[in-house]
């Protein structure tokens, strides 16, 4: 089982960083502006009900509130979606799937947290099974108050997000690449040292030159070490011990 076809190759980060928006040529600036304008006008919401607030979405999409007026459509797979809604509490089990889904989404992508459960644990603050601060695990753009917020509040939240995208201020997704080590640290703290998602975030950061100084660190080193065992061709978890002992 050789290494090279395994998803996580920690590619060497080129030294050159991505040119800032002001240094790009005139044509590029125009294209960026058009892209930004269209990104704010056409948002695809991921059809993924993570918590109790998802029931508020059908009324906001259908005839009463009709979010298609601002160009929003529900989409089925993370590959096609731009917005991931975390509607309420997140159990540790669901968080694993949410992180996988978030990493499968293509940036620029946005996360919206509903209610106080995503801020400080909400009414499940002292439960052993729920996650307290969503911001530790994936970067969040907007929080909407309310347990659970009504469609009017959701609509207001979306309009605020659209206005920030149009202004170019909704860049939380870049933070995931720039400070991936911090996010990975929190994730490993919860799920154990051998936590691994199929998406190669470090590789993507290198490929699209979105890497910052916080991308690599002790946790991504752990990722690299455990990558050897949990290869895509499947070394089951139980055999880690003797592999570690032997190596």
């Amino acid at each position, binding site marked *: 089982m050789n290494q090279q076809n395994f998803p996580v190759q920690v590619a060497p980060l080129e030294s050159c960083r991505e040119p800032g928006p002001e240094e790009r040529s005139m044509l590029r600036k125009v*294209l960026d502006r*058009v*892209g*930004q*304008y*269209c*990104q704010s*006008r*056409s948002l695809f919401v991921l059809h993924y009900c993570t918590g109790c607030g998802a029931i508020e979405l059908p009324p906001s999409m*259908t*005839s009463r509130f*009709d979010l*298609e*007026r601002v*160009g929003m459509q529900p*989409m*089925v*797979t993370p*590959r*096609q979606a731009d917005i991931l809604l975390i509607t309420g509490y997140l159990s540790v089990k669901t968080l694993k799937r949410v992180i996988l889904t978030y990493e499968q989404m*293509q*940036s*620029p992508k946005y996360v919206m947290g509903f209610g106080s459960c995503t801020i400080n644990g909400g009414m499940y603050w002292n439960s052993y099974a729920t996650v307290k601060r969503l911001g530790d695990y994936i970067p969040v753009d907007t929080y909407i108050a309310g347990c659970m917020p009504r469609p009017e509040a959701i609509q207001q939240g979306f309009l605020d997000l659209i206005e920030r995208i149009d202004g170019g201020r909704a860049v939380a997704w870049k933070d995931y690449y720039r400070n991936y080590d911090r996010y990975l640290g929190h994730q490993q703290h919860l799920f154990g040292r051998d936590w691994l998602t199929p998406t190669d975030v470090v590789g*993507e950061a290198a490929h*699209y030159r*979105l890497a910052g100084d916080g991308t690599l660190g002790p946790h991504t080193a752990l990722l690299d070490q455990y990558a050897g065992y949990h290869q895509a061709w499947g070394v089951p978890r139980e055999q880690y011990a003797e592999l570690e002992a032997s190596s």
Partner: protein
Amino acid sequence: MDFDWQHMLIELLVMPTLAFVVGLVMVLMARRLRARIERRVGPPFWQPLWDILKLYSKRTQVSHGHMHEISIIVLLGGMIAMEVFLPVPGFDTFAHHGDALTLIYLMMVPTLGMALGVSACANPNGSIGIARALTAMLAYDVPFIITVAGAAMLYGTTSLPEIIAIQQQQGLEGWGAVQMPLLALAALISMQAMLGKEPFEIYVAPAEIATGPMTEMSGKFLGSMFIMQCFQLYTVSVLYTTLFLGGGENWATFLIKIFVVVAIPMTLTNIFPRYKTEAVVAWLWKWPTAIALVGLFVVMMR
């Protein structure tokens, strides 16, 4: 058949952009119709264009290998080539180089290209979607081919510009729909399936196979699939208008005709649920095929 390159290049650029713009407006009409039926306001005018531009401006995209990218190029190329061969008022020099049969087979090239790309994504949702799309094609192509055979028998030729000329000579009662109403009806039903509209829309099926072929498409790949949808709406409606509604004398009547032709499946799609795969095949091989055969018999008797 002279081959003046300069004329070809103009047509090669003008007709696809024309098709794309008309296709965009058709997609907008589809979404607005759906909104009206659901008592909603519906998207703003430029929404389909914004969707495509947003998808093309995505910063990161996922590709599953060279075949995935080449298939999208074949998809776009096949569609662009098909637009050039459609007889449109004013530009139909190229329509003389190929005829109805060529066009039907040219329509299958982008579908096969997309099918290969989607399978290269190695996602079973996509493979199931493509298997269903090809099954649906087998189902709706039987009545459609019978109508094409009937049209060829009636007009005596399969060259599209000549078919238009024949129909336009005799004015309104020269139209295909008037001459062979049964075949026109059968073609309308198979067009509903060709566009993948609701009762026969089994290959996107978001509830069952996570949008089938579009499962692993992100960014510009999905944008190209949206462009393909625009081209497909335009192509099928122009083909139907050419065969049965006398083609376009001038652009005004031509646009009205193709928009009316496309409006019919779009309204029907919002009323029907989705059939099972074998139900689609069984239904399409029963009623539209029977209507088409009777229509063909009538044409042959004349």
